[in-house]
């Protein structure tokens, strides 16, 4: 079953220091140019949430994080209705654009893989 996280080259690039340095500035420019920060959103707000494991990961956010996420959505919907970006002081700065949901999604995937492993394990009694 495919997941919204999909296939990505970024772990390989990050693990090679030379490649990482080369791609760093281009990556940062592109993230800014995508425009989601100008609508007051973080990158993990864009992850497609109509998926069971993303819902489980969302259940692991703290109440504060959930509230902030809902606020960002509400604000972004308003900007979308007006067909305008938010005022500059409401843009998300680069330091705040942290992947807050991805660690939870990775945990959920690890746990599901572990459950699948235990369900299909073959036991030999020595």
């Amino acid at each position: 079953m495919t997941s919204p996280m999909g296939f990505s080259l970024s772990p390989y690039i990050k693990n090679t220091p030379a490649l990482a340095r080369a791609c760093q500035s281009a990556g940062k420019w592109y993230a800014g140019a995508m425009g989601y920060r100008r609508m007051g959103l973080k990158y993990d707000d864009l992850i497609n949430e109509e998926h069971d494991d993303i819902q489980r990961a969302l259940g692991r956010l703290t109440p504060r994080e959930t509230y902030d996420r809902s606020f960002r959505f509400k604000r972004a919907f308003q900007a979308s209705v007006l067909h305008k970006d938010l005022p500059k002081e409401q843009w998300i700065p680069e330091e705040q654009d942290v992947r807050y949901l991805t660690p939870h999604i990775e945990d959920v995937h690890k746990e599901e893989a572990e459950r699948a492993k235990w369900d299909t394990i073959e036991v030999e009694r020595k």
Partner: protein
Amino acid sequence: RGYATATTDSAPKVATFKSAKPTASVTVLLSAGSRHEAKPGVAHVLSNFAFKRNAKHSALGTVRQAELYGGVLSSTLTREHLALTAEFLPGDEAFFIDLLASHISTAQYTPYELQELVYPSVLDEARAVQLSPATRALELAHAVAFRRGLGNSLFADPDAVHAVGIPDIATLHTTGLGGASLSATNLDAAAVAELFAASLPEDAPSLSSTAPVVPVTTYFGGSTRIADFHAGSSAVFLGFGTTTAAAVPALHALAAHISPAPAVKWSAGAGPLAGKLPGGIHAETYVFPYSDGTLFGTLLRGSPAVLKDGAQAVVTALKDAAGGLGKEAAQRAAAKAKFTLLGALESPLEQAQLGERATAQVETVGALDGAAISKVAAELLKSKATFTAVGDVHSLPYADEVGL
């Protein structure tokens, strides 16, 4: 992520017992009973958080592996201890001791496990208690007798559970490591100690021998009534408490004397309450010995209309016992108490809690005579009684109406 900075003792002392069972067991007794909790309900939540994710094993992995090996993992909360027990077949001690050691030193207490796994099971238990007048009567008896400390309830309140957070749980876990002890059944002490020490990570917290400081218990006594018209039956607990440790063997014998439970099933039994209790009333005598206080009493359950007569019969039996106990009655009581104590020692929890003192106590109880038992009964009757009534409070008696 470790939470404690307790000193690491090398190779903890292990108390071993022999039992006729084919299985072996290892129990870790943490000083994390309900008397050590800073906030109500924390100990109950901590006991349900046993064997969840730690550094080496996930919650699912622990359960599946234990099942594949063929073992039972349990956590039992008492007022003074949290007992983590692993019962298994004698060849598998390496795995299960590693499990226990990993939980003690590297339990992670993640927030999502609290929400997804622990809160639901705590709420289930808490709601089941709310529906049982007998359990509530016993919890209230402790609260009335000892107030805080030993009076803390074993069970969290369903409405107060969500106020318990990860920091509270972690603090109680750290407190529990102080004065903790290890005991094993059907295993070799040195082997267990070695396996345990080998499974602990280098810098992780471990069991230490300094017990946490708790306020000294005082017995207060008193009475309380709780209306509960939802349950079909009512419950009344009447008893006494004491902080004298020397009285405990006689209390076991007195409980055996008063207890209406027959030795032969379906018979009326032989004792002061045989045939005196109204129909439909179940009565059990309890002795709750703790390290610095004991609660003794009878719990009556049944239809509220006749509980008053049952309670009066129990008080009359107690007063008669204080007046003097015949030789045969005393012998019967001592033998019954000895048998009950020895029977209780079959469980790993009781072995761990009572330890080596158990055999000595059993001998003391067996050697009691009528004078000793009456003396203790008379002293109890002079002190303030503990009386709790849960259920149809309109029909249930007050303490002075039953002679206390």
